[in-house]
């Protein structure tokens, strides 16, 4: 039934987003890029893709951070085009997507202000997609109480602060805990909003957000081994919308080492595969030629004490699964998840481009294939 009226408001934008998706780099283009010798070659190769001449005005030598910033600017321009042409409820959906970046920016500003950093420098380091009008006001606050009240009143993130964090918490608690608490509230809110949209949007977004929730739960657990984070505190940071909720979340809260984490993830078949050892099983790398060597290097050094899954390797497998879920979102028409999936895939592509550029710049060609391709 959604097909009857979807095109009234959002048909044009869906066509635009699918056009953007057709411009994502393919396997062939990635191969060409990995064979570049210098950054100038890299730039020439990129100009033949949808990126065009985005680096044309940069003076040589180009640094990889410039490449990353310019590529992010391309993404931001595309997102702003979509956002300016959207009406409700798509505009609300796109706004929800920016909240994740806003959380990162707010935490950055709070940390910076509490440590007395320069406000302009902080504002420049903020992610452009997470910029909101009253952000500079956050830098003006001198103490924590003021900061908390400013944040509470001025920002779109106010509901997430109100429910979970109090003024006293802002300087006592570790800043990472605040970030995770905010993100948990954001994920649950986003999932509830998608559920009100109904139809295929709700189904596909729930699948993607549930994986995001589980991924954060697993990462929080693994990163908290050996720190002072108590188990009750850890349990409060897990989002409740994942596939591991509630038994998996409880098991993760009680876990003390990686084996118990693996056991907690047993009920879900896809997650079980993340913890298995074996290089070729879950790392589709950029090229077959150098691929097997580099993955063997990653796993070979560490032996079997972690059961074949290191933190970095696990993170890569998470990215691979996330790319897979985002590609699946494009199989259905007349729903909003394509917008979310496209932005995530584009971000992944920018990360891959930055990796390749870094490897070229530092002449580390043996690790150049360790990025995650999208197609």
């Amino acid at each position: 039934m959604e097909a009857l009226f979807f095109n009234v408001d959002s048909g044009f934008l869906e066509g635009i987003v699918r056009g953007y998706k057709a411009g994502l780099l393919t396997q062939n283009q990635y191969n060409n890029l990995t064979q570049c010798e210098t950054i100038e070659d890299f730039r020439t190769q990129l100009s033949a893709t949808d990126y065009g001449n985005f680096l044309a005005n940069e003076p040589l030598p180009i640094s990889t951070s410039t490449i990353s910033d310019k590529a992010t600017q391309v993404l931001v321009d595309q997102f702003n085009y979509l956002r300016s042409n959207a009406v409700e409820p798509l505009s609300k959906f796109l706004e929800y997507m920016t909240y994740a970046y806003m959380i990162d920016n707010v935490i950055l500003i709070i940390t910076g202000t509490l440590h007395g950093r320069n406000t302009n420098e902080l504002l420049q380091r903020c992610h452009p997609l997470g910029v909101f009008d009253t952000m500079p006001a956050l830098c003006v606050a001198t103490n924590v109480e003021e900061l908390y009240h400013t944040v509470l009143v001025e920002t779109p993130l106010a509901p997430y602060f109100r429910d979970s964090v109090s003024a006293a918490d802002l300087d006592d608690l570790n800043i990472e805990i605040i970030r995770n608490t905010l993100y948990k509230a954001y994920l649950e809110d986003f999932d509830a909003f998608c559920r009100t949209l109904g139809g295929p949007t709700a189904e596909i977004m729930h699948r993607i957000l549930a994986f995001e929730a589980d991924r954060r739960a697993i990462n929080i657990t693994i990163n908290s081994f050996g720190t002072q984070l108590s188990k009750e505190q850890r349990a409060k940071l897990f989002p409740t919308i994942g596939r591991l909720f509630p038994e998996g979340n409880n098991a993760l809260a009680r876990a003390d080492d990686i084996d118990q984490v693996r056991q907690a993830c047993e009920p879900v078949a896809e997650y079980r595969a993340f913890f298995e050892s074996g290089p070729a099983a879950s790392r589709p790398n950029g090229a077959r030629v150098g691929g097997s060597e580099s993955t063997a290097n990653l796993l070979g050094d560490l032996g079997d004490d972690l059961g074949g899954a290191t933190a970095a390797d696990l993170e890569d497998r998470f990215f691979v699964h996330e790319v897979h879920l985002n590609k699946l979102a494009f199989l259905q028409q007349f729903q909003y998840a394509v917008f979310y999936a496209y932005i995530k895939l584009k971000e992944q592509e920018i990360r891959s481009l930055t990796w390749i550029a870094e490897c070229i710049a530092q002449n580390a060609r043996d690790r150049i294939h360790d990025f995650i391709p999208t197609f």
Partner: protein
Amino acid sequence: MGLYSSYYTYGLSTFVTVVVALYLLFTGSGEAFNVGQFLEETSPYAWASTGIGLCIGLSVLGAGWGIFVTGASIIGGGVRAPRIRTKNLIRCIIGIVYSARMSPVPDTLLYTRENYFTGYALFWGGLTVGACNLLCGICVGIAGSTAALADAADPDLFVKILIVEVFGSILGLFGLIVGLLMVAQASEFTAAAPAAAVSPFVH
């Protein structure tokens, strides 16, 4: 209001119907509700005209619906892949073709009134063709939208999805055939022997 709007819609109409029915019953004029008398007294012209109107109206609605669904996607997809514009506009035309077929038939029949069957046949035939064309138009429109976006992504898919759309067009064709079968049985409106405009069944 959003949560209970279905309660209001169904509840209110049921309530009004029950009140009117009970009023008729309790004031002794329950016989006023007489389906047979209604069918006999309404003019076959009214039935026939309503049928033709529904046919044309619903067909146009279906064609328009299909065109806008496809058109929005063509506009969006055409930004990056301009080649899809002309190929995909043909799809919109298919929906309109069936909307004009019913009109020539009744024009020669509407001179005098008599034949109830003609009236009913035109009404239900028109409704059938109209509804089938409406659904056919929507179907072709949605399939066309997907086809335009698939064509923008990969040009090889154009012909394959065209086949799917032809199957959708067949829906309208079936409706047209059934409508024509119904109307073929109906004779022209012929004058009753002496008094032309009055039905002998009306008291």
